[in-house]
């Protein structure tokens, strides 16, 4: 399993939080430069797309989810690409799967069964997802129950209101208790960046979550009007770098929502490699929260093999 030492968290250090500076325009300029500065072509592109695929948290978070729908998703996670394409790429031995399947609590039991022995992680959104406004003890209890039901990863939502009033202590305390409730399961903290309004807020909340013991910091629930973007990702991964430089612990990053094109996923990988390095190009430190991205990656992989543009009906739907 994991080769990285898990972040134990640390006491809240308000200096690290308060001294955070983010210049929005400069962040946007840098984020816009990746596509011009780095280009991944041909063999490399195929390999990189496979890597992106292996980092996907294949997600369904709908009110109309059923056991059968979740089974289809789990089977897709285990067999994300048609066998003959993998063969043509010479990568059958990778036994490639997506990073995880991500569902609501109610679907965990079923999913856990479908995924058994596959190596695909099982993530549950939790703590009153997506608003996080259920009673606090119930949020903590929800984590415990999900872990008991087989979730190996818990995606919690932070209390956005604590960011607006800058009550970092309370935010820290909440996330710390979530982490304790997780036990062995990994904790991903969703900031709902689209709602936090400023990059400065995002940066500060990122740091507080990492201090409180987050294993991953994640952008969005997918339910906000603005989800993952490259600029907000840059803000968050710079905080991950800062935390790593100061503590030596590597925190993972998960952009979620709005990433549906293979080409976009490459830019996220470039960002991770440039800002954090090779170690962050593995599912243990990087995930995409996405549902339709996989389909586009499959089409691009087939194009790489055949030289012909592909069509979605040629690939199993998830």
């Amino acid at each position, binding site marked *: 399993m994991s080769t990285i030492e898990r972040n134990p968290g640390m006491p809240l250090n308000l200096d690290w939080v308060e001294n955070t*500076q983010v210049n929005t325009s400069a962040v*946007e300029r840098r984020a816009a430069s990746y596509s011009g*500065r*780095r*280009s991944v072509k*041909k*063999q*490399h592109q195929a390999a990189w797309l496979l*890597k992106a695929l292996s980092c996907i948290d294949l997600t369904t978070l709908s009110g109309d989810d059923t056991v059968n729908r979740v089974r289809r998703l789990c089977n897709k996670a285990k067999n994300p690409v048609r066998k003959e394409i993998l063969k043509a790429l010479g990568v059958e*031995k990778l036994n490639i799967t997506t990073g995880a399947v991500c569902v609501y609590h109610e679907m965990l039991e079923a999913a856990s069964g479908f995924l058994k022995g596959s190596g695909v992680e099982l993530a549950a959104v939790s703590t009153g997802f997506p608003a996080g406004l259920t009673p606090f003890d119930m949020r903590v209890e929800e984590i415990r129950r999900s872990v008991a039901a087989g979730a190996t990863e818990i995606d919690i939502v932070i209390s956005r209101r604590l960011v607006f009033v800058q009550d970092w202590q309370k935010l820290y305390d909440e996330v710390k208790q979530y982490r304790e409730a997780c036990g062995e399961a990994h904790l991903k903290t969703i900031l709902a960046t689209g709602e936090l309004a400023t990059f400065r807020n995002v940066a500060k909340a990122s740091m507080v979550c990492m201090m409180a013991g987050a294993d991953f910091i994640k952008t969005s629930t997918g339910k906000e009007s603005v989800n993952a973007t490259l600029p907000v990702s840059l803000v968050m991964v710079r905080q991950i770098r800062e935390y790593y430089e100061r503590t030596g612990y590597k925190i993972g990053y998960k952009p979620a929502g709005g990433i549906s094109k293979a080409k976009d996923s490459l830019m996220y990988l470039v960002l991770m490699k440039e800002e954090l390095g090779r170690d962050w190009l593995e599912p243990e430190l990087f995930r995409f929260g996405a549902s339709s991205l996989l389909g586009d990656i499959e089409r691009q992989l087939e194009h790489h093999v055949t030289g012909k543009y592909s069509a979605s009906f040629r690939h199993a739907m998830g």
Partner: protein
Amino acid sequence: MSIMKIFETMDYGLAPENTDEAMNWLKEHDRKFGQFINGEFIKNKKASYFDTSNPANGEKLAKITQGTQKDVDMAVTAANIAQDSWSRLSGFQRAKYLYSIARLIQKHSRLFAVLESLDNGKPIRESRDVDIPLVIRHFYHHAGWAQLMEDKLDDYEAIGVAGQIIPWNFPLLMMAWKIAPAIAAGNCVVMKPAEYTSLTALLFAEICQQAGLPKGVVNIVTGDGKTGAMIVNHKDINKIAFTGSTAVGRLIREQTAGTGKKLTLELGGKSAFIVFDDADVDSAIEGLVDAIWFNQGQVCCAGSRLLVQESIADRFHEKLIARMSKLRIGNPLDKSIDIGAIVDESQKTQIAELVKVGVEEGAELFQPEITLPEGGCFYPPTLLTEVDTAHYVAQEEIFGPVLVSMTFRTPNEAVALANNTRYGLACSIWSENINLAMDMAPKVIAGVVWINCTNQFDAAAGFGGKKESGFGREGGIEGMYAYLKPKYERKLKSGKEQKPFVLKIKNSMATVDRTPKFYIGGKQARPDGGYSQAVVSSKGELLAHIGKGNRKDIRNAVEATTKAKGWTNTTAHNRAQVLYFIAENLALRAEEFSTHIQSLTGNNKKDAEKEVYASIERLFYYAAYADKLDGAVHTVPLRGVVLAMPEANGIMGIVCPDENPLLGFVSLMAASISMGNRVVMIPSQASALMALEFYQVLETSDVPAGVVNIITGDKNELAQVLADHYEVESIWYFGDQEGSTMVEKSSAASLKRTWVNNGKSRNWFDNKVAQGLEFLNQATDVKNIWTPYGE
């Protein structure tokens, strides 16, 4: 490499840009190019050629013609023939051609980008995403200026034929910066690209053909510095625009002195990159990447001097070093490359030598462990820390990917360090405190200031320097003025020298001796040399003895101006008040000055009174303007503002005309001090006494000490001292041709801005020629302050 393997390494691999089209283009021309003169490519059988090659691999690309005097003559003739009809076209007609050029470059943008990277060695990312888009933008924008000439610049007209000489670091972009405004304004051009990088200029010549540009409007003559000198010294050229080294710029200033050629120079720099402790440090470091590792650091405005606040310096350097290790250096045509090739082996050697000097002086060297590609001209990104102002590398332009770093403690120290250089091109300021950043921007001496950004350029914003970084602006309306002259200028006639009157009547001195002294630092001062000269009235009476100034008097006067900085920093409202007060006090003594004018000039009472009242009106005029030369907010494609702030030149020397002793003096003094300059005035010999009488008016008008200083004596002798003086930032000379030549020539050392009359006189009563925008523009320099915003 197998996909399995790449899946593990996650390397970028190669992403080479296809060069077939560019190679085909070279082949179509048999890899041999002639001169583009009068709309056609001309190959002379006797021509000699030099090679242009790809610095990334040494491969020879093509043969370029070495321009001869005959080539230059032909080009200048073609331009002169085209000049009249081109400048007479309507703005709309010229705009159509510029628009076509913009469109055509856009259509062939990738070919231009690839050719540029092949010839120059810059990463394809930069030529594709920066150079060529800006080139296109310049032609679009200036199509607009051509269109709006009649609307917005109706008092101005084309200068004539412009000789333009550009460097190799941004070959096509520098060409666009020069050609677009020149032809928009109605000038024709003779352009010489740099010898290392002529190819895109020649491709551009084809674009001119395709656009149907009238013959002779754009001529391109290739060659080395010798060809450049032929352009500079050509008698039928009216304007020289040069971008390049300070040394060559200085030579051009000397060679064009007194020829009447207008001149703009965009020269070297050692621009500061200031990081305060409240900056977004990660963003500032990316800023540095764009500042000093953009175009291999071969950028005149490169942020090559890092000034970082001491409290964050160690951490900043650590992060910077980590960032440098991520830079990728290699084949410029690879799309995943940050740093390409140095343009030529000689440049690389020079960079290496300067770095060696830095290390010998005690600098600590960091270069990341990057393997440099073999067979090309590459130099690694370099950081020199432990550098101090006294080190050679802290003062000299390296023109390569080499950053020197120093620390500062306070904002004031940051300003002092930033300005501790002979150059004054650009400055980056990084702070999240708007109060601090906006306070710093006016204090740094630079033509361009970037707040929380760096190396931002646009056709709508002016670019150019101060001090030894040259003068003149490119881009924006301030750039248009570089290719225009006031319409009245062609009507100015040569002035007549006014000989001093001869003393005829002995013992004519007034009963009480009058001892007008110099006026220095708000005090009357005796001449240092102890010599005086007689002032004789038109009737031959001895009016007084006035001091004969020498170089020490000038030195003292300039020193007084340096202490009067408060005048430049005070509010414009305050300056206006002082000017009004001068006018008021002059009005009180109108009769007395009228009498002086009569005795000095022999004019009748009516004319003398007219001159006094015109002087009072002129003071009112500039008092009015003191708070109305508003500058602009340039409309650039950026979320933010670009403030174009007119700033005082600072310390000025002003040599006054012979005509209209009071009015000439007052006109120049009022124009300059209204904008916040501090001045050393040299009155004409004929009117010297009048000027000295005038200090009594100044003394009663709350003019702070040192703002206006007056020295009398031999006009040209004193002008020479002012022109030579390194502290004097600008000089206006109204006198004879000989003096004009001398002033321009002597100003070459300090590269100060000059405005000379070349012996032409003007009617100081005529508001059209004796006041207005031309004076205000000459009294100020536009600083462009880029401030992106957004939270």
